[in-house]
């Protein structure tokens, strides 16, 4: 089962670069949705069939692949925004940084004291690389929606690590975490909507009234 999982994780890491390198938000939103769906399928093929597993897989795919992109596209349409205009660092430097982060993730993962059955798998490096990509997006993008996308990528990175411990996380907790993520994005969508109405832009670099 694991070879397929490894291929899927390579795909997930490639999507990180797509999110880092594209200026069109439509592409970014779809990329993150695709990433979420890919990750949603993984627990379904890694473990033997059970109704619990089916419910979780369906829940993740619906939340990350349908509901969240729908909320984000809705927020984008209302805010009339299509592109990230001027990120704090350009797309090429961001891609280079992403590549460095991914390489470092592999180096770092090789040094971690993993359980023997997880040695040599891509889960840990993919998780760290995705996490770092999320951070990179969060701190270098100015538009509120791009920051939400960064948060989602970060969340996906954490989710990859969680795949290693499906036994420890009972279904109720996973469902609760998923619901919280969904509501979180919903609230963020509303806030974005209000930011765009209040400032006629969703550029968060304009949010500077509150400071010392």
């Amino acid at each position: 089962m694991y070879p397929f999982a490894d291929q899927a994780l390579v795909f997930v890491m490639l999507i990180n670069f797509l999110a880092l390198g594209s200026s069109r938000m439509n592409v970014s939103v779809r990329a993150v949705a695709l990433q979420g769906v890919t990750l949603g399928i993984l627990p379904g093929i890694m473990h033997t069939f059970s109704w619990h597993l089916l419910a979780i897989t369906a829940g993740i795919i619906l939340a990350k692949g349908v509901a969240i992109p729908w909320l984000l596209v809705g927020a984008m349409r209302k805010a009339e925004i299509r592109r990230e205009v001027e990120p704090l660092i350009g797309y090429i430097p961001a891609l280079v940084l992403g590549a460095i982060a991914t390489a470092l993730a592999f180096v770092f993962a090789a040094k971690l004291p993993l359980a023997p059955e997880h040695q040599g798998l891509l889960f840990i490096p993919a998780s760290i690389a995705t996490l770092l990509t999320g951070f990179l997006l969060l701190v270098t993008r100015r538009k509120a929606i791009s920051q939400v996308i960064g948060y989602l990528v970060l969340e996906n990175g954490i989710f990859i690590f969680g795949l290693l411990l499906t036994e420890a996380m009972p279904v109720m907790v996973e469902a609760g975490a998923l619901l919280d993520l969904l509501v979180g994005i919903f609230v963020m969508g509303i806030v974005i909507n209000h930011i765009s109405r209040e400032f006629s832009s969703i550029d968060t670099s304009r949010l500077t009234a509150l400071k010392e």
Partner: protein
Amino acid sequence: MLYALVIIPLIGALAAWLVPSNRVRPLLLPLFALLHVAMTIDAFMATPPPSAEGWIALDSLGKIILGVTSVLFLVCAVYAVGYLAYRQERPNRVLCSGLLVCLSAMTLATISHHLGLLWVAVETTTLSMAPLIYFNRNARSIEATWKYMLICSVGIALALLGLYFLAYSTIVARQEPTLLLEPLVASAHHLSPSWLNAAFVFLLVGFGTKMGLAPLHTWKPDAYGEAPGLVGALLAGGLVNCAFLAIARVYQICMASGNVQFFQNALVVMGLISMAFAAVFMLHQSDFKRLLAYSSVEHVGLLAIGLGLGGGALFGALFHLVNNGLTKGVLFLASGNIHRSYGSKSREVAKGALRRLPWSGGLFLAGFFAITGSPPFSPFLSEFSIINGAFGQGRHLVGGLILLFLAVIFIGMAATVLAVVLGKIPKELPKTTYRDQFLTVAPPLFLMGLVLILGVWMPAPLQQVLTDASLLLEVKR
């Protein structure tokens, strides 16, 4: 019984959502708050048995926080009736429902012994508070809400990663993978130390963001400054305690693991940094609500230090949790009244509150003396026992630094508070309709009374609960 504590506020939230009248709706808040207090007292009298798999249980640590939350919420709920009567121009459906959802989530956090469930509860408190910070619906409050949402969400996500690391440490150690508190404490000394350390760091950063430990506190002044007074009171006296509880749960596991030095030092250092940040930023703070936010940063720092010192300071830290929650309630509610009356929260405009609003001004002043650790109020006792704990362990540097920061903070806070309370009323003030009245003064007055009573007399049951809870956090060898 314990389930009812969580479910009843949710029913209240639903009811508040369905009630069409803006005038009647706030009355649901004290009603459900009273129910909650009654059930809490009942649960204290006869501790309900834990749920079958040990997910839900009320221990002494949970009792302290549940008690404070319940009392503080009742006070805020009564205040809300008076406050929202002034703010009839604003729809309050979201506020009332959000408050009750938040109460439910805070309750769930206090009684959950499964760390995953605890995480879900803390995350739910974050989400339910976001619309409340945005109550005033202006550019400043949207900015505060956005920062709060993004920073806390990322923090909480990192805490989830920390939980995963914790669970992974059981797998590496060939234990049953679990996130239940009791099995983790029992098997703590078998857990993989490096994964446990990593888990602790991420959980401290994650829940520390929520708690507002510096340098992760950046959302706090904005959110506390822009939120209505009663929301600020609940943030500073309720949510902070829930995040502290989450850190304390992790601390319980770490203390049982044997190698305690790393964890304790991390907490002490974080706490000292928080106090230092607060001291610096309070010196020239002219906005009195932001001032209170930095005061909150200071006191979560103090709590972290107390937890990190361990031993005798634990009792002080837990007692301080109670005192800080109650006193912050006084300060935020009183400052909300002053803000309403002057239409400004700057010390340049809002001056002479003692003459314009004798009750709120007086309470603000008394609250200031209490929170900065002046006798005879209870924070004096708890701060004293934390400092005493530091010197008692021979950690003179830590004790000395706490004293230094407390002195600087007293001066910084006094400059603004005294200007607001005692200054000369400016000639041209915008006309506002707010005057002190029973419903907005009695709640903080009641809290102030509690703070005073606890300062001179410690009831035996509280003493018992605090002692039991500090035993839970002791190092187990």
